[in-house]
């Protein structure tokens, strides 16, 4: 398995607080890597660091052999890495189709080509009804789908999904898992952050667990879910009073 | 050397007034999240109110400044409640142009009511200069500085020690949390805006002894105010105070070494440089 992304001792400090400490791990080409951890563990920060929204205080991020830490997000997107936003960040002043066209414009010079690509991507995620309404009119599920469509339209080789399944019903989650698998099967490597344990266990090839900004476990879903530190971070340590 | 120091001291005197006038602007941005492009016009309003109060009562404008503060305070509260509140959630363009329009209306109303003439309200101490060693200072400027300083101190005490002041600060720091503990944010906005404009008005009263009053005086003060506020950090009250002094000194020194027409040029360049390299200002939030 070849390595597509590697983080080397990446640390990010905001003021006095370390959001991410000394994180080192790799992502293999074609895999689905799950990232778990309680809230505040630094998962979204790691994603932000990878796509270039923040610069690491220390450490390197290497994508396909090339150092990308400190590059502008649009440059990193051009190299093939993009993400969805945990708090959905759609372009609310633009119709649904246009949202995806913006993404498609990265690889398609002419607007007509970008629009065609956008339509294709929207059907891939199942959003091809009235594409002229505003994202604000969409329900939660469809908004998440739109975020994914927009990211997909940029033609990434590495896609970071940040809690796209938040708030979904079990049926909706099954469809979402299916969609993520289809994305992987089309040749895209994925890093996924989710809180729903069942979903992430069934999706991921490997899982990395974080707590308080530091990596605490790494391995197959079974290994990680049985790891004592991981259980502690979610459930808390045993009370030591008498 | 004396020339230099004299210029610096003079700069600090004018800077003190800049500080108080701009503090209101900073306050409003920090709390209401609106840049009040009409702030210079509130200064002008304060000057006219003071002028007419002096005319009617014969009292000293500096003594009248608390009254002037009150008048402008009420007017500012009305403006906030009736106009600005409506655009708090509107696009940025709307917010900017609303206060620009208010400035237009205030200037033209003043022109219609009072004509474009330059008026002045000299007091018995307008021409008195105080001599300290080799330096001389204009007494009205010293008084303006002292009163401005007191106003700043009162503002600080109000914000730090009173419940209302703390409520205002809470709203600026975390609106949702403030609401959850029972603070009415809209009331805080009205208060903050009214205080901010009231201060500008009171500063107008305080500079009356040594300034001319005319409807477009706001235009001369406008950019200086914004420079002070941005340099000090939009939203930072102590920042505005420090920046006011700094800008006053810069302006004063510039007038020593450069021709008068270019006096403000350096200030504007400082403004652009601050925006470019340190938009959060010296003590910004």
């Amino acid at each position, binding site marked *: 398995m070849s390595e597509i992304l590697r983080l080397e001792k990446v640390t990010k400090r905001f003021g006095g607080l370390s959001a991410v400490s000394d994180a080192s791990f790799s992502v293999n080409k074609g895999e689905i890597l799950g990232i778990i951890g309680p809230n505040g563990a630094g998962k979204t920060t790691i994603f932000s660091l990878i796509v270039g929204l923040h610069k690491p205080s220390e450490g390197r991020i290497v994508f396909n052999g090339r150092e990308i830490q400190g590059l502008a997000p649009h440059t990193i997107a051009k190299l093939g890495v993009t993400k969805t936003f945990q708090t959905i960040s759609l372009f609310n002043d633009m119709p649904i189709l246009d949202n995806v066209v913006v993404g498609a414009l990265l690889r398609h010079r002419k607007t007509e080509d970008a629009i065609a690509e956008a339509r294709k991507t929207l059907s891939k995620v199942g959003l091809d009804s009235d594409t002229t309404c505003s994202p604000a009119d969409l329900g939660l599920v469809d908004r998440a789908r739109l975020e994914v469509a927009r990211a997909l339209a940029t033609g990434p080789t590495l896609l970071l999904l940040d809690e796209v399944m938040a708030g979904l019903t079990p049926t909706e989650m099954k469809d979402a898992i299916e969609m993520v698998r289809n994305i992987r099967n089309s040749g895209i490597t994925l890093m996924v952050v989710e809180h729903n344990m069942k979903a992430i266990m069934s999706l991921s090839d490997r899982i990395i667990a974080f707590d308080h900004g530091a990596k605490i476990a790494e391995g197959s879903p079974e290994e990680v879910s049985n790891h004592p530190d991981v259980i502690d971070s979610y459930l808390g340590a045993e009370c030591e009073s008498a | 050397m004396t020339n230099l120091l004299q210029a610096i001291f003079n700069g600090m005197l004018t800077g003190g007034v800049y500080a108080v006038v701009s503090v209101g602007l900073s306050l409003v941005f920090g709390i209401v999240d609106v840049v009040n492009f009409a702030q210079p016009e509130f200064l002008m309003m304060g000057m006219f109110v003071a002028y007419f109060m002096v005319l009617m009562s014969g009292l000293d404008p500096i003594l009248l400044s608390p009254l002037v503060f009150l008048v402008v305070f009420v007017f500012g509260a009305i403006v906030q409640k009736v106009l600005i509140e409506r655009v708090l959630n509107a696009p940025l363009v709307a917010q900017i142009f609303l206060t620009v329009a208010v400035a237009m209306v205030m200037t033209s109303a003043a022109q*219609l009511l009072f004509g474009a003439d330059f008026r002045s309200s000299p007091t018995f101490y307008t021409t008195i200069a105080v001599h300290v060693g080799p330096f001389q200072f204009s007494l009205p400027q010293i008084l303006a500085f002292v009163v401005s300083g007191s106003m700043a101190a009162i503002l600080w005490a109000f914000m730090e020690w009173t419940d209302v002041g703390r409520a205002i600060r809470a709203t600026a720091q975390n609106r949702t949390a403030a609401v959850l503990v029972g603070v009415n944010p809209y009331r805080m906005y009205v208060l903050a805006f009214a205080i901010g404009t009231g201060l500008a008005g009171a500063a107008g009263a305080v500079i009356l002894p040594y300034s001319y009053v005319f409807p477009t005086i706001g235009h001369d003060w406008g950019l200086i105010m914004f420079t002070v506020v941005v340099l000090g950090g939009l939203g930072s009250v102590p920042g505005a105070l420090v920046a006011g002094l700094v800008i006053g000194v810069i302006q004063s020194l510039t007038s020593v070494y450069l021709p008068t027409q270019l006096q403000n040029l350096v200030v504007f360049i400082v403004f652009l440089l601050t925006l470019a390299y340190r938009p959060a200002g010296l003590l910004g939030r």
Partner: protein
Amino acid sequence: MYARLNSHPFKIVRWALLALLLILPPLIFENRGYYLRISPLVLMFAGLGGAWNIIGGFANQVSLGHAAFFGAGAYTSTLLFKFTGISPWVGMMAAGGVAGILSLVIAVPTFRLRGHYFALGTIAFAEILRVLFLYFKGITEGPVGLCVPFVGHSIWVFQFHGNVGYYLTALALLCLTFFVAYRVKMGRLGYQLRALSSSHEAAEVVGVDTYRAKLWASILSSVLTGAWGTFYAQYLCFIDPDTVFGFWTFSVKIAMVVILGGLGTIWGPLVGALILIPLDEWTNVVFTGNLAAVSRLIYGGLLIGLILWQPRGLLYWLSQVVERRRQNEIRMASTKMEASHE
């Protein structure tokens, strides 16, 4: 009904009507008459608004300092004409060039800024230019202003007897301006600008080079504005720093035209200019002398009313009305279909 309004033959009729309307003034008004004197000004402000719209409306970067580019353009062509005799047409291109370069200069301190900070920066920039042009009297004649030497009626030197020539020139420049705005809005840059004004971060993450997009918008906007500056100088034959670099005389007015007509629309600036400029002229005629401030008062009051009612302008409001009707029609059509299936 909406579908019918948008159909091909009706579109042709709309365009024909518009062309007729625009070509009418020089045909029906007196060449040196009042109406033909202010018509080029209407077109000019429509053009200035259209140019401003490229960054103010499409990218939501509210500039309150466009007078900087306008004045720079006016002085560039005028000084060139005065000192070297170069035709103002060439001067117009130089004016655009100078304005474009200036926009690059101002981009450095202001581009990382958002919202209010950006607006404040643009104000400062225009003020700096105004002060500089006032100061260097030797070249610019300072506050006294510069007269464009009138050498006679000649297209070559961009001077005409009467106003028809100026009107047609303004019309041509307006078509150019609106064409550029149209191409920006419908093209790649338009999508990118709309995206970054909606969410700067998200736009970056999906590959939009926001700095470059804003830069291009700024360059296009300023070049056009500079060209209009030349037009103004040639039309009025007189420029001075307080007017052409003025905050109230130009920067605010330019933006106001767009806000009134419709922010981010193509035709908005024309609608805004058609309303605002005649109103301005009328109030200046009616309220003279001591009452001159009344026109400003009316302006300010209008602006306040407009912002409270419809901050995005008339055309935006109109498009919302049309959109709602369209949605209603779709809904009614689909319920009719359901009913007929029962």
